[in-house]
């Protein structure tokens, strides 16, 4: 059914279609609208046999989710940014216990300084947590991915984070095609927990495991992750056939055929970039996009195949690893090890600084013109602002960035 609704409401509808037994959340922007709507569905009876718990912190949101999942019901929660970090201990715990919780991360920057706007530093900080991390291009993709996430999580036996860009997607009003309850019921059967707390068959979950078995347990989680690559593809295929929606998957290629440059992008910037790639193609510039949908598990083989013999790859990263470089780029390099593919990365769109088509355009041109000199390049840096500080503080300046676009800076929040 087609609806013109806010992305958050679409996610809430998707979650409700999956018939969870427990949903809990703590308010944090920009995730709030999702759980507000799920809570409403529970209260008005649209979502039955489900309890909505208003907890006092994200730590408890994850903990209540752990309890509910261990208690044998399908469990959902959502968070972002600081909230995600506040529940980190529980995040690792949920995956260690193999609980198939599905959680939306409405991706947002992490403070200090406090910043409510979108980037990927929150979700990517959890790359080693043992959760599957699926990124979404659009609200339709996010809606569909949530539904698939439950099935994937339950098959794999690990929790799944559905990462969708905060505000950009969560607060965007768009046309969404919502599958019918019958469709989803046929796709996602009633939840059958692999193990749960049941007085009929008492088990002790969460034992202390020492050196004698810890490595093996870790190995088994990694094995689940590797299996998850197949599961994601299979579930995606099934879902696409059911709905006709081109959502999900490990990664998605756009105009990659004969591309001399392939951009690797995660999240909502993919859509913006697609429009720009169309314009560049119209100008005869052979550029394509690989939209990375599954960051964990990382589809090394699939990505290598997607890059193929293209000699130039540029990543667009909306997060950063201090003291190192990008976070995505090293993974891409690992995928392309042994080839002569030139892989570089750009950092843009931090803390809500918008990514425009023009941003993509600049990156493409800079790459093709050999202006991306280092492995990593900061895009749309306000060097004037930077230098005004550096001059006073340290008596030095950095070179003015030729790649900066004043209108971009102006259009971002705070300039408006």
């Amino acid at each position, binding site marked *: 059914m087609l609806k013109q609704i806010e992305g958050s409401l679409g996610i809430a509808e998707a979650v409700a279609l999956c018939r969870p037994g427990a949903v809990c959340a703590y308010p944090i922007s920009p995730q709030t609208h999702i759980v507000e709507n799920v809570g409403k569905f529970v209260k008005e009876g649209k979502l039955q046999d489900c309890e909505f718990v208003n907890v006092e912190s994200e730590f408890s949101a994850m903990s209540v989710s752990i309890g509910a999942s261990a208690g044998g019901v399908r469990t959902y929660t959502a968070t972002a940014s600081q909230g995600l970090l506040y529940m980190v201990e529980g995040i690792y715990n949920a995956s260690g216990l193999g609980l198939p919780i599905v959680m939306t991360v409405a991706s947002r920057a992490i403070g200090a300084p406090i910043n409510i706007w979108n980037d990927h530093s929150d979700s990517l900080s959890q790359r080693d947590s043992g959760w599957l991390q699926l990124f979404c291009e659009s609200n339709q993709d996010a809606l569909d991915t949530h539904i698939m996430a439950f099935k994937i999580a339950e098959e794999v036996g690990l929790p799944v984070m559905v990462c969708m860009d905060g505000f950009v997607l969560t607060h965007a009003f*768009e046309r969404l095609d919502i599958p019918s309850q019958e469709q989803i019921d046929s796709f996602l059967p009633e939840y059958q927990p692999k193990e749960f707390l049941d007085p009929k068959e008492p088990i002790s979950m969460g034992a202390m495991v020492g050196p004698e078995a810890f490595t093996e347990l870790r190995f088994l989680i990694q094995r689940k992750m590797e299996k998850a690559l197949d599961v994601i593809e299979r579930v995606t295929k099934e879902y696409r056939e059911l709905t006709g929606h081109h959502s999900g998957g490990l990664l998605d290629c756009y105009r990659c055929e004969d591309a001399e440059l392939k951009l690797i992008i995660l999240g909502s910037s993919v859509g913006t970039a697609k429009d720009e790639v169309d314009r560049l193609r119209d100008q005869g510039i052979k550029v394509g996009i690989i939209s990375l949908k599954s960051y964990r598990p990382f589809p090394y083989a699939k990505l290598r195949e997607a890059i193929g013999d293209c000699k130039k790859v540029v990543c667009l990263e909306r997060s950063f690893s201090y003291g190192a470089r990008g976070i995505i780029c090293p993974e891409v390099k690992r995928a392309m090890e042994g080839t002569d593919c030139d892989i570089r990365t750009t950092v843009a769109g931090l803390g809500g600084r918008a990514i425009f088509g023009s941003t993509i355009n600049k990156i493409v041109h800079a790459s093709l013109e050999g202006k991306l000199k280092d492995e990593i390049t900061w895009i749309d840096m306000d060097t004037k602002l930077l230098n005004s500080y550096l001059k006073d503080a340290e008596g030095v300046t950095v070179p003015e960035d030729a790649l900066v676009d004043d209108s971009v800076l102006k259009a971002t929040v705070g300039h408006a």
Partner: protein
Amino acid sequence: MLQIRLHGRGGQGVVTAAEMLSLSAFLEGHFAQAFPSFGSERTGAPVVAYARIDNKEIRTHEPILEPDAVVVQDRTLLTALDVFAGISDQGFAIINSAEAPEQIVPELCERLPKGHVLTVPATDFAMQKIGRPLPGAPMIAALAAATGVFKLESVQKSFQSRYPGKVGDANAETAALAYEFIMNVKNGGQNA
């Protein structure tokens, strides 16, 4: 693709207006998109919202730098911000005011084609029908009248579906007033 930027202040329903605008277009079979400027929308603070209307899937999520139309819900913003920044030469500007456009934005009136810069006393209409200064419905109805891209009925329907009952009806009535007002201007009539 038609790109619209809406300016207003927190509490005036700017984001809702953008959403209703997208819904109106959706109801007519268009692809549409609306999104706020992702701020924390405190009452009284300047707020920006965006909307896009197209006949194919809208993939981009970038903010609108070069709008085809600008809707200004609060005329006090005219002196505070460059609300018309990037507006295309064939663009439309709808301003919430009882005064004539020539009196408040004479330069813009000169730059854009005749009839593309319009004022509408949306707050007055809202006070008449809703009893609260919520100019969203009349403003987008005015945009509908000015551009002809979507119909008054769609605007009314979108508000009525969002706010079933009295509030929706009152919004629909204000929308009609504004629509009539602009059609009247377009047909050579004078501002009230």
